[in-house]
């Protein structure tokens, strides 16, 4: 499947970055990055530690000033959007939340509704429904009344994902969503991301495991020292040549351990 066919099928990408450059002091931590993700697809951001995956996600979320380049969402250029408009267009899930206060899980998820309705108003019926739906989607209804900091790291991750879902934004940006999870939880999360994409969202996730990316992503973008080393369908990016060039390791096709959730496709 070529890039051109993809673009033809999805006329308006949920996010499109052109020539993205971010500097920290004089040093460019991201340079001339091109990126595009359409609704319905999972794009994996790959690369060794320090390659700029998190920086790229933060830039896409509008949290970093761009030295150069252009960032366009479905609703228009990111730079021209008001904060609440931006929050309805994209949802960002950090690796770990800085939240240490004992807000209840449902209050944390309800934060995703801030950009809907009036800023100084309260939660409406529609907001409560969206919160319930998001909690159900990540299977967190059982602990909705517990204090967020008292949850395990894996549970916290699910709540942060639910908060992102409650925004109903078409673009999901996730920074290593499975890093704190065990293998079963990680597979469940990837399954969920896949389903979310199939339901019409665009999912952009920084991912550490190349195997997981191969299994769940449609396309991949491989970063190396802040530049794009390879980009395209995931089987072309997670392939012997780019992997050797960036990581300096040999990719052995079919040699790795594989995992599957129980009762699935067997």
């Amino acid at each position, binding site marked *: 499947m070529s890039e051109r066919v993809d673009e033809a099928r999805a006329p308006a990408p949920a996010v499109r970055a052109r020539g993205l450059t971010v500097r920290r002091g004089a040093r460019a931590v991201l340079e001339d990055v091109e990126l595009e993700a359409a609704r319905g697809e999972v794009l994996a951001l790959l690369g060794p530690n320090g390659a700029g995956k998190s920086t790229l996600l933060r830039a896409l979320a509008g949290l970093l000033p761009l030295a150069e380049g252009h960032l366009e969402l479905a609703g228009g250029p990111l730079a021209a959007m008001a904060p609440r408009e931006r929050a309805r267009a994209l949802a960002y899930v*950090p690796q770990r939340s800085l939240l240490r206060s004992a807000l209840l899980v449902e209050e944390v998820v309800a934060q995703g509704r801030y950009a809907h309705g009036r800023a100084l108003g309260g939660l409406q019926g529609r907001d409560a429904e969206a919160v319930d739906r998001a909690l159900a989607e990540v299977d967190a209804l059982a602990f909705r009344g517990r204090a967020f900091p008292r949850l395990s790291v894996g549970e916290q991750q699910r709540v942060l994902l639910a908060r992102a879902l409650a925004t109903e934004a078409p673009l999901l940006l996730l920074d290593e969503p499975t890093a704190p999870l065990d293998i079963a939880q990680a597979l469940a999360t990837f399954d969920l991301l896949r389903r979310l994409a199939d339901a019409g969202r665009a999912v952009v996730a920084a991912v550490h495991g190349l195997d997981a990316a191969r299994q769940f992503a449609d396309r991949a973008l491989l970063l190396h020292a802040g530049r794009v080393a390879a980009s395209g369908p995931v089987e072309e990016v997670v392939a012997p040549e780019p992997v050797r060039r960036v990581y300096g390791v040999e990719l052995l096709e079919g040699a790795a351990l594989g995992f599957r959730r129980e009762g699935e496709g067997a």
Partner: protein
Amino acid sequence: MSDASTEPRRRRAGAVRLYAALVALAAAAAFASLSVGAADLGEEALRQTLLSLRGARLVGASLAGAALAAGGVLVQGLFRNPLASPSILGTTAGAALGGQLALLLVQGLGLGIGFSPEMALPLGCLAGAGLSLLILLVFLRATDDLLALLLTGFILGSLFLSLGGFITSLAQDDWQLGRAVVAFSLGGLGGVGWGQVLAALPLFAVGLVAAWGWGRPLDLLLAGEDEARTLGVDVRVVRTWTAVWVSALVAAAVALGGNVAFVGLIVPHALRPFAGVAHRRLLPAAALAGAVFVAGCDVLARAIPSRGEVPLGVVTGLVGAPIFLWLLIRARREERGDV
């Protein structure tokens, strides 16, 4: 599932119990405040006057306490730090300095004709509190550093106190002005009448209602600037306006009771386990509890046997300082256990 559906009911019952307890305590404090004092209520002739005086004092104490506690909730959210409070950050000292300056200008130099000292005092406090918060926000872009925050607040507080001392010594040239400035600086509700209460009331009401309205973005800021921003919060706007509401609340409190320490720190702390941390639930409960705490301390100030009356700031300080120390030790211990 049953766990999830009984949860809201359990929480509502908890809230009812909390408010019932607070209202009972408020009634007790009000009764004590009206009946305790140097004079005897038994004399028919004086009774009406005494009750009116003590009533003004009770309302003043309650407003000051509610304002300080609500201000404490707001600065703790603003700086994402449960150990912040208007007195620790130097905001009350800034408001006190503003008030002293206002007294000096209006009562001493006769500037601002048409302004009575009663009106000028809250406005001076407002300017002083606003300025001290502005300095703090400008100096502390990265507010996660507890030590930097507490040190800057301490330095600001000390600076404002020294400047206040200077103004107090300037004011001694005029006996009446000197008395007014010293009485205001010591803190205390001895001289509070209905005039002062009415002058401070608008600041208090605007500050409290607005603070409640801004509860949701303040909740979002608890998760840090980045998360709040991606969820749609205009961080700079929320911070600036929150600082304005804190200034209004602290100014109302200081104009009424002078520099009263520790209320804004310990009341929100004591209430969080019962009311939760969400601002819209915590603020009203903390305001009510703050009113009870200061009205109670004011009764103590009158009841403790001494030659005059023990200043209110002394009582809240004696009660509050050990509690603050304990909170600090507990926070350090949690921090160490966390990492």
